[in-house]
């Protein structure tokens, strides 16, 4: 609106919609649910003007099914939902993992379980995002901690989904989704767009699930002349169902291998004041905001505290912690749940530092002063 300033007032959900458009999303299917509905409303308005498509489905099961269908048709597809809707999407999320369909699910976490606290912040879906669908499967989960990051992580999510032929979940908490902040969005030419690799070979050569050197197979769109089969059954390189133990193993292991190869690229982690830190706060989402504020106060009173900010939650960036374990005495993990990433930290820490959690499940945030008090108590 103001041509002179590149800064805009943007809500977290608006930033997601802007990020989706910047990343080249041209298909959205969704179902209304608080607190994610703004994403659907904005994309319903904006997509057709760009030649993209929007459809409101009859439920969230249909929504994820439709974006899988659209992705198979060659679109870059995204849906946005919240806890109960995310629960409904789980079965088809597993389909997309096994059939290796690129797509992005935005899950704006609200208080749960069940209908829970529809308009209150929570981080209760961290483990569901990892293990919500049945069976062993790899998943990529990103969690933005500011409005600006909501924009950039949405782009990252789309790019990772396309590159690795895998569903990516953007896990936001309601605080980030609904807060408005001053942000500066980069011009379109500065936004990196990654497209899935399409086959160039003659159709008779094409094996839809034969992995290339990158660990990912080129993906043909339906209608492009490569007639092939996609199924939710464990399959061979041709895409046909198989019961051969070797082929089943190759299928499932292959899913993990491609994500393991990209591990470092997928893992987004930031470190703040960690160089001399003897104590660390590990945070993600809105808890990063509380932690930063606490850090400022703690450093003023000469406490050697740093912040490890997790942008990627899954695969879990264990190296982020491991490299600092030799210098850390205590680690505090504030979460708006009963302690979900806390368990991962315990696992990686393996008894080296003192691990403490600070949890809240009443629909309000953990404040900076509470963090300051807890860290000071730990240091003492």
């Amino acid at each position, binding site marked *: 609106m103001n041509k002179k300033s590149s800064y805009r007032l943007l809500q977290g959900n608006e930033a997601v919609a802007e990020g989706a458009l910047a990343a080249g999303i041209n298909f959205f299917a969704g179902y209304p649910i608080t607190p994610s509905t703004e994403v659907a409303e904005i994309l319903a308005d904006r997509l057709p*003007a760009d030649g993209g*498509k929007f*459809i409101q489905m009859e439920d969230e099961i249909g929504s994820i*099914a*439709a974006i899988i*269908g659209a992705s*198979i048709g060659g679109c870059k597809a995204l849906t946005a939902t919240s806890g109960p809707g995310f629960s409904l999407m789980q079965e088809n999320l597993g389909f997309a993992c096994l059939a290796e369909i690129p797509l992005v699910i935005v899950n704006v976490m609200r208080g749960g379980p069940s209908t829970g606290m529809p308009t209150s912040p929570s981080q209760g879906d961290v483990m569901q995002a990892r293990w919500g669908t049945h069976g062993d499967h790899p998943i990529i989960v990103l969690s933005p901690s500011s409005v600006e990051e909501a924009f950039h992580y949405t782009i990252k999510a789309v790019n990772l989904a396309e590159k690795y032929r895998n569903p990516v979940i953007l896990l936001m908490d309601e605080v980030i989704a609904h807060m408005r902040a001053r942000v500066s969005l980069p011009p379109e030419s500065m936004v990196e767009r990654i497209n899935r690799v399409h086959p160039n070979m003659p159709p008779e050569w094409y094996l839809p699930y034969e992995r290339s050197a990158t660990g990912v197979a080129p993906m043909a769109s339906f209608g492009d002349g490569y007639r092939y089969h996609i199924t939710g059954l464990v399959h061979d390189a041709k895409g046909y169902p198989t019961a051969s133990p070797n082929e089943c193993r190759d299928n499932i292991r292959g899913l993990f291998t491609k994500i393991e190869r990209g591990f470092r690229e997928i893992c987004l982690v930031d470190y703040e004041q960690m160089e001399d830190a003897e104590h660390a706060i590990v945070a993600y989402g809105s808890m990063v905001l509380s932690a930063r504020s606490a850090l400022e106060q703690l450093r003023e009173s000469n406490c050697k505290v740093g912040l490890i900010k997790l942008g990627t939650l899954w695969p879990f960036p264990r190296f982020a912690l491991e490299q600092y374990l030799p210098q850390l005495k205590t680690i505090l993990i504030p979460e708006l749940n009963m302690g979900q990433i806390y368990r991962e930290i315990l696992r990686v820490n393996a008894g080296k530092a003192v691990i403490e959690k600070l949890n809240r499940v009443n629909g309000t945030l953990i404040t900076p002063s509470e963090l300051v008090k807890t860290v000071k108590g730990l240091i003492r």
Partner: protein
Amino acid sequence: MISNSQLVNKYFRHNKKFPHIWCPGCGIGTILGSMLRAVDALALDKNEIAFVSGIGCTGRAPVYVDFNTLHTTHGRALPFATGLKLSRPELKVIVATGDGDAAAIGGNHLIHACRRNIDITTIIFNNYIYGMTGGQYSPTTPHGDKAYTCKLGNIERPFNIAALVEAAGATFVGRSTSYHTLQLQNIIKKAITHKGFSVVEVITHCPTTYGRINKKGSAVDMLSWQKEVAVDKTRAAKMDAKELEGKIITGVLMEKELPEFCEQYDKIIAEAQNQQ
């Protein structure tokens, strides 16, 4: 008309391991045959056909044929197909689904696809039972009939699928049986040509489960029953209610033209771009 060996040569996947998973005497293969003959008669390009299915015996049909084939999750073939069709309106999207897949777990998607009038052809293979899981009662199992989850008789009333989809807003409704292969082929042909959401209900038989527990005899006996109870729509019009008792009316039951979803959406795009 294309011969059987030509049909196999032209439409079956030669790099797919056979035999297929269906039981001896199953009606699914016959219905698939009618569908392929309809596709052949329309001279459609195989690259332009997307064949989508859900879960169950019917769900296994796409893997054998040489189209763009998508075997989805239980009950969800229609929303997958909806996304695919909207992303690629030039594709002819055909959905194969069973009675349990379409009318129980996928019932909500079915009625909303009808309401939306998206240009998809849905063939519902109605054999009155869940075959793959071993014979449990489905939303179309007749009242009083037996299944392995209602051995003393079904106390629920069945859906009349053709009536259901018509009420939900489908713009083409046809019905035939796996005995009437030629009639079925012609109805599927019309359904594919129809612009909008078309449903073809096919009455078929599961000799292994439904037939066995209800003592319906062999597959041939069950086909003979289909022959007996099926009454073409034009003939049925001349029969009274008493004569029609226990009969199944077949043919193109309803056909109308209403704006199609993808075409309407293209207009939305044009309007949105015009406003810019």
